[in-house]
């Protein structure tokens, strides 16, 4: 079994369109050592002249899936890796993968809850791995996801999130749409702020294990607000993506 530090070849076994700019790729990895929800992989592309480029992508799938994993990738127009994945890669192609990587931004049912997840855009990906793991494990740990997207067509995993929240097993999902709302929208319609965080967090209490992932500015805003609301710093884990759209 390769160590996480070694590159291994994964075969693309499925490609799914999530939103107009986001796709999920299922990779078959026969020698995958398994991962924990929240970890990421590095993907390396190498050109014929030897030039290579690496990017980190959060794992979207739950650890319970053996021998495969799913990454969800937003297409960055001027990116070096994501346009290749979106526009060139087809099923059957092989990609160099290294991982799993990271142990800091990780949640598993054994850590307990309550669990409070805050996502902006594709920041939902590692949190989805946590929710899929939670569902697969049959957990009823009280859990809330606050998920910020720009418009209704840009909500990644929306159908699955609504389905998971409909199980009545203690998961609730709150959406906010910051730029465009469909007619009759009943969710939030603004950027994440103190009042919104307070409202969504309130039923979980200030001891909730909190994971925030998204663009750096959103993560900063949410983490600082939660500290003001009295959440202890050691209950808050963050993963910043950098600037929006890069």
């Amino acid at each position, binding site marked *: 079994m390769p160590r*996480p*530090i070694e590159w291994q070849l994964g075969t693309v076994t499925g490609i799914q369109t999530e939103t107009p700019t986001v796709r999920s790729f299922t990779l078959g990895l026969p020698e995958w050592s398994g991962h924990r929800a929240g970890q*990421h992989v*590095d993907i390396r592309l190498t050109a014929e002249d030897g030039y290579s480029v*690496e990017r*980190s992508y959060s794992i979207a799938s739950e650890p319970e899936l053996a021998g495969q994993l799913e990454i969800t990738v937003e297409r960055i127009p001027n990116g070096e890796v994501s346009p290749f994945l979106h526009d060139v890669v087809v099923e059957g192609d092989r990609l160099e993968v*290294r*991982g799993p*990587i*990271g*142990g*800091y*931004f990780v949640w598993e049912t054994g850590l307990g809850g309550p669990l409070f997840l805050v996502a902006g855009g594709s920041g939902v990906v590692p949190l989805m791995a946590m929710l899929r793991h939670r569902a697969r494990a049959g957990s009823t740990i009280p859990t809330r996801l606050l998920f910020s997207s720009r418009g209704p067509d840009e909500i990644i995993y929306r159908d699955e999130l609504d389905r998971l929240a409909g199980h009545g097993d203690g998961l609730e999902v709150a959406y906010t749409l910051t730029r465009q709302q469909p007619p009759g929208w009943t969710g939030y319609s603004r950027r994440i702020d103190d009042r919104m965080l307070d409202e969504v967090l309130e039923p979980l209490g200030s001891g909730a294990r909190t994971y925030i992932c998204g*663009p*750096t*500015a959103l993560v*900063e805003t949410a983490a600082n607000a939660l500290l003001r609301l009295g959440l202890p710093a050691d209950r808050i*884990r*963050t*993963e*910043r*993506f*950098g*600037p*929006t759209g890069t």
Partner: protein
Amino acid sequence: MDEPGRDPAADLMVDGNAVAGTLMGVFGEEVTTMPGQCAHCGTVNMIGGMHAYIRGPGIVLRCPVCHGVVIRAVERGDATYVDAQGMRYLRFRQSTVIGR
């Protein structure tokens, strides 16, 4: 992002988690849950909770409390140069070192 007066460089910051792959290549182990003490202010933080800047020619890790530079790493050829002057110590678990 749209906030007036916000330092544009602040948006470039990511977490130590983002450089986990590079640092794993240096230390040979997963490091994001490894505690280290900032040599500038004495705070102990896990690598994954430090602030990382990765858009330059190398990577820079800064203390999340005092923002002092704790680690710089640059890859050159087949080598990685690591300057850890700002890190007073890093705590490796024995099980991750012995027997390797």
